[in-house]
């Protein structure tokens, strides 16, 4: 008998990279986050082999969530093939053995930075959003302990004040991405820096949304069928980005969220930001089999749930 035979083999990495304590802690926090929609639950947030600020929060949630039966899609700015998405997808697949896809419909778990796919998510799908700053009150209250008390008291007066100041000064809301929303009528929440175009997708959605900020060590959730309302006034409504007149140079489609590609001589052409959706439109156009799901916005720019965008039709017509 030799020591070498007796010694246990060194197990360098457990399933999903994180050690079992780390996964269990995240799972405990995720269950609480689902039970308290929109509330930021602190968690230990382990360091991962990718840099902080590059999606470590979303990645920890995904790694604790997936099992061998899952199919994972990873996007960054809507693109499956951007280098950061490719890198995260490679890491998730390497550490868990899950299959991966670019097709929103085929995915069970979708990790995303800055976008919700154009095709509607369905029951049983989980959308994991990477969050740089989970605190919607940061702009009006930089002190995190005071912001915590404001959430405890549901005291969002300063946020409304700042919205009102924008109106007085600019005649409209000037918030770009990460437009703050009220969840289940109780918690003010940052939906992560998704464009306003994607914000209504979270309202009364069939799928589960998990949001996680690795650097800031907070995770929160929007369960399915939960009210998610962008903050707005009775007479001045939240508006999504203007996509009117933009035609996708690749597919010819309209009324989807477009990337602007600047041209050398000035001006821009446009392309649909959701590359998985573009690939399927192209397949369909070439007569290849492609199952295209219903989208959040139809070809005329109407949001699928009537009444959610109170400024109905503004996406189509502008103001």
């Amino acid at each position: 008998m030799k020591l070498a035979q007796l010694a246990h083999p060194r197990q360098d990495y457990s399933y999903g990279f994180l050690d079992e304590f780390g996964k269990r802690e995240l799972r405990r926090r995720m269950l609480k986050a689902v039970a308290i929609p929109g509330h930021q639950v602190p968690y230990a947030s382990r360091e991962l082999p990718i840099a902080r600020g590059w999606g470590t929060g979303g990645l920890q949630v995904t790694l604790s969530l997936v099992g061998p039966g899952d199919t994972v899609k990873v996007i960054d700015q809507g693109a499956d093939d951007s280098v950061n998405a490719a890198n995260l997808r490679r890491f998730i697949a390497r550490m868990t053995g899950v299959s991966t896809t670019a097709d929103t419909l085929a995915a069970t778990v979708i990790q995303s930075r800055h976008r919700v796919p154009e095709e509607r998510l369905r029951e049983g799908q989980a959308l994991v959003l990477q969050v740089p700053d989970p605190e919607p009150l940061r702009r009006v209250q930089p002190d995190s302990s005071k912001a915590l008390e404001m959430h405890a008291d549901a005291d969002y007066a300063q946020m409304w004040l700042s919205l009102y100041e924008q109106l007085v000064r600019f005649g409209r809301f000037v918030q770009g991405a990460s437009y703050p929303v009220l969840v289940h009528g109780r918690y003010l929440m940052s939906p992560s820096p998704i464009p306003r175009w994607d914000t209504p997708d979270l309202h009364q959605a069939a799928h589960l949304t998990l949001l996680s900020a690795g650097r800031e060590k907070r995770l929160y959730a929007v369960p399915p069928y939960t009210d998610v309302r962008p903050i707005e006034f009775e007479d001045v409504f939240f508006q999504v980005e203007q996509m009117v007149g933009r035609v996708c140079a690749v597919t010819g489609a309209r009324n989807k969220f477009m990337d602007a590609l600047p041209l050398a001589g000035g001006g821009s052409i446009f392309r649909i930001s959701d590359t998985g959706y573009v690939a399927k439109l192209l397949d369909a156009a070439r007569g290849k089999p492609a199952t295209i799901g219903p989208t959040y916005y139809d070809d005329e720019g109407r949001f699928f749930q009537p009444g959610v965008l109170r400024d109905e039709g503004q996406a189509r017509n502008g103001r």
Partner: protein
Amino acid sequence: MAYVAARGGEQAILRAEALHGRLRAPLSAAIVRQIEAHLPYLVDRVMGEGSLYAPELAALALAQSGGDLYEAVLLLRAYRSTQPRIAYAEPVGQEQLHTLRRISAAFKDIPGGQILGPTLDYSHRLLRLDLLDGLGGPEHGGAPSSSTDGAVTPAELPQTPPGPSSPLPAVADWQRASGLLATLPDAPAPDPAELPDVTRDPVHFPAPRAHRLQSLARADTGGALALGYASMRGYGLAHPTVNELRLAHADVLLRHPITGATFSAGRVRVSQCEVVNTSAVELRLGYAATLGWNEVKVIAAAMLDLEMDAPTPHPAHREEFVLYHTEPVESSGFCIHYKLPHYVTFQSGLDALRAVRAEGSEGSVQAQSGAEEQA
């Protein structure tokens, strides 16, 4: 659009990593062992900021990252995430340290004496060009080096070395006995498993002292220095003094699960520093310690500890500001994330800007638009 390749993004990643590797010499176990042996202070810095004592792995991290310190710290921190926490060691007290260097700037002589230990503080910083020319000896010998050759011959050494419990009483003990410093509370030792832990708990401010000192122990050396220097140079209290600085070995004492007795699993290098203010009615101490030997970090961090207790601290010495912004993995990671594409959020901001311009409202849209939200 160059870096959002329509195809082949994965291939580009693999080739980029391979190219990075090709531009430094190949790695081997021997190189890692050399780094560990030849660059102990660099290894210590990575271990301190990485919050993991594992010299072999810190050397490997340095080799793998080509010496990029933030990458090396990240490698070590990420490795921690793969390892279960299996024990809580017994708390290390100053009296149990095997001290190799102990100096005080507060007094010319101190009980136990000033022990310089291993240091380059008083060396002439002259490059040993003779080494490159193959003229110098392997070590202290050879051509006259920066300082008088200090290597001691056995005959010169004290014949009766002080024992392991060589008395190096704390300078602060003398100050406390003299009524200059408040006495320490006579609290029972806390359960080592029950201490507040920044790697597990959210930090709220004012932070428990355990959170503050643990954060400083893990802090970025450069970040702690920059903020600490700000206070030394004029944004803080008037010129604190180093009360005591120690470099030491500490036993990692574990409880034997069968006998219940403690045993040492080995020794680790630690540094600690106390600073004392000199301008107030009563003396107060600032404190910091870290894994590994890193004097700049513990001096700067101890200054920050003192500053953060000031009634109206400079913004750069507010606890939340200091602890968040000296975290090396978070700060460096967030900094380099700006290399990631941000075109969706940038466009969302532009949309708001165009809409305001179109309406010809007064003023101009400033940094309030989505531009600040593109993380």
